[in-house]
């Protein structure tokens, strides 16, 4: 009985002493932190993807609190709604940003782009790229070993075994840009998601001349310039035999899609057109979703 009472008293006294010490230490070494950091962090999506350019959501929250304006700060995952919330907490105005999405600019599927050799080294795009151009004759196209898949933190990009090309899940993609950095060929680009997810882009990165590009891949951009002439909004430029559509200028009129002789310009999530006979080559592309991108245009 005595022992129990004694141990209770000793432990009680020790507990009290410890609490006093802890209290004093906590007071002494207290770090004054802006309470808004916690609030901002709560408003952020906690994806910790690094898409904003900071080490994580907390780091980004600190940067937001310390910043004078939110001009250069943007959470690609949360988008405008999150940034507006952050702005409300901090009493700053957030710029409205267009939601973005990762776009794979290569259509060199097994069908469109002949495989000329087999690679049996380590299954990594970075390694294959340092050794040679890849399994096809196109030195700009997708290698298909899935460095982007490994890099994605949101399970939003996958290789389609039928085409050998990566496909982006629009709902899951947060436009953090990790896959863009992971791709050694620089094929993936972040583009404006567009109204109703509608987008038009050149699905090719081949900078070779006409003949060489065509020989390597049946759906390569040959830099013919027809789309440039057709575009009324000055959105298309050609550099090194390759067309590029500026998504900030593009008005989604789809005229370039019609004139492209190789079908390398893709339109996504558009409703089917009325006059189907008029443009038979691009017929299939009109209705496709991103999943069957590469099967278009045989």
């Amino acid at each position: 009985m005595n022992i129990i009472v004694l141990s209770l008293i000793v432990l009680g006294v020790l507990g009290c002493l410890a609490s006093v010490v802890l209290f004093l230490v906590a007071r002494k070494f207290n770090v004054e932190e802006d309470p808004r950091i916690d609030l901002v962090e709560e408003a952020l999506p906690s994806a910790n993807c690094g898409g904003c350019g900071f080490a994580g959501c907390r780091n980004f929250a600190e940067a937001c609190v310390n910043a004078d304006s939110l001009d250069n700060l943007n959470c690609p995952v949360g988008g405008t709604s999150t940034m507006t919330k952050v702005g409300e907490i901090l009493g700053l105005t957030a710029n409205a940003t267009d939601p973005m999405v990762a776009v794979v600019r290569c259509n060199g599927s097994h069908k469109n782009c002949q495989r000329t050799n087999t690679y049996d080294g380590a299954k990594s795009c970075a390694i294959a790229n340092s050794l040679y151009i890849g399994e096809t004759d196109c030195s700009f196209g997708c290698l298909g070993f899935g460095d982007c898949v490994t890099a994605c933190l949101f399970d939003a990009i996958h290789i389609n075994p039928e085409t050998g090309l990566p496909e982006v899940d629009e709902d899951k993609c947060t436009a953090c840009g990790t896959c863009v950095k992971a791709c050694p060929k620089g094929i993936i680009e972040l583009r404006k998601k567009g109204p109703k997810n509608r987008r038009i882009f050149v699905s090719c990165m081949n900078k070779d001349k006409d003949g060489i590009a065509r020989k390597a891949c049946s759906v390569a951009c040959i830099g013919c310039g027809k789309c440039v002439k057709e575009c009324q909004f000055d959105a298309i430029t050609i550099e090194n035999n390759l067309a590029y559509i500026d998504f900030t200028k593009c008005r989604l009129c789809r005229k370039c899609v019609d004139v492209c002789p190789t079908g390398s310009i893709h339109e996504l999530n558009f409703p089917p057109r009325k006059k189907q006979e008029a443009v038979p080559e691009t017929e299939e592309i009109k209705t496709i979703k991103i999943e069957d991108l590469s099967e278009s245009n045989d």
Partner: protein
Amino acid sequence: MKTFKIGGVHPQENKLSAGSKIQKVALPTQAIIPLDQHLGAPATPIVAVGDTVKVGQLIATATGFISANIHASVSGKVTKIDTFVDAWGKRSPAITIDVEGDEWADDIITSKEINRICKLSKEEIITKIKKAGIVGLGGACFPTHIKLTPPPGKTAEVLIINAVECEPYLTCDHQLMMEHGEEIFIGISILMKALGVQKTIVGIENNKKDAIDYFQKLANRHFGIEVVSLKTCYPQGGEKQLIDALIGRQVPSGALPIEVGAVVQNVATTFAVYEAIQKNKPLIERVMTVTGKNVKNPGNFAIRFGTPLTAVVEMAGGIPENTGKIIGGGPMMGRAHMTIDVPASKRTSGLLFMTKEESVRKEPQNCIRCAKCISACPMGLEPYLLMSLSERGMYEELEKNGIMDCIECGCCLFSCPSYRPLLDYVRQGKATVGNIIRARNAKK
């Protein structure tokens, strides 16, 4: 018997083409001479389309410090200065010459007579070697004149001649030694004069008994040249391994052989030096091996740079059936080709045709921590660790674990019982860390 101390493996030697006489490859109708035939920046062309060139005429000059001159290896008309697709599908600059006859530049001595007397001074020799565009023919293609000019404060004590040829299958150096031994010894004395050294050691592996005997006989007639027979072990031809095996000195991490007073030159380079100094003939051709278990006539061929490899393969009996992979170089360090419709260059030491069965890489299994890669690594690294770090992109850790010391010999991959792609990842990691270090140094 001497060999290097740490690591190493002994793959099947398969020297199928040993003893086969060096055959000359016929001149092509069109030669594509790559401008990137050496370590460092590609050379700058100095001829224009339409110019007529003679064999041995300078057509491109070295760009920057680490670079080398390039000479016309055929005579004829320059038709294109453009790019060509190399064996790995990449485009690189080249000069195309349509061959007309075989007219040599006037100052080149074409007779086979051996010229023993060299009256040039040290500086004159080095300048002449630089002009002749000579690079190390062992594989790395490092410009020879840079190796012969030690940085201030460093002196060379000993010249080491690399006659090891440790790669399985390759026999071009061996055959060159048997056919041009005397010229090689004159080349060695020229190099000794250029470096101002009194001692030379020639290292030959003991799987080339005839070459050891022949060279020992020749060495008796030359002062200061010693021939040492080495135990056959891969990668003895690596500079650092060879220095360790022959003089027992270890080159510190990140340093060049000159740090321990040694300069290493390949035996084929030595022959090129002889030709450049005594015959005024720049580096326009080399000996290469075409081999493989199914090749009809495996052999050694003297090929002018720019000649398509298809020509030499034709001489060896064409592409054998059941070919799974065509390797440029030896099986250990060589790289698989996409095509053989590419020109020969200073880098081309061999073509190896592997059968489908030989060339299949087995499915990688998990690492069983057996440490075979560690005991095989001649640089004392831990390849399994380097691979995991590289896979995870931990580049700072990679640097701390000495990835820049890796010589990419492939012993780890060869010894792994789980067939893990160790070298693939280590090489990738090394390249990335190298870029990071260069960027850091550039900032300073």
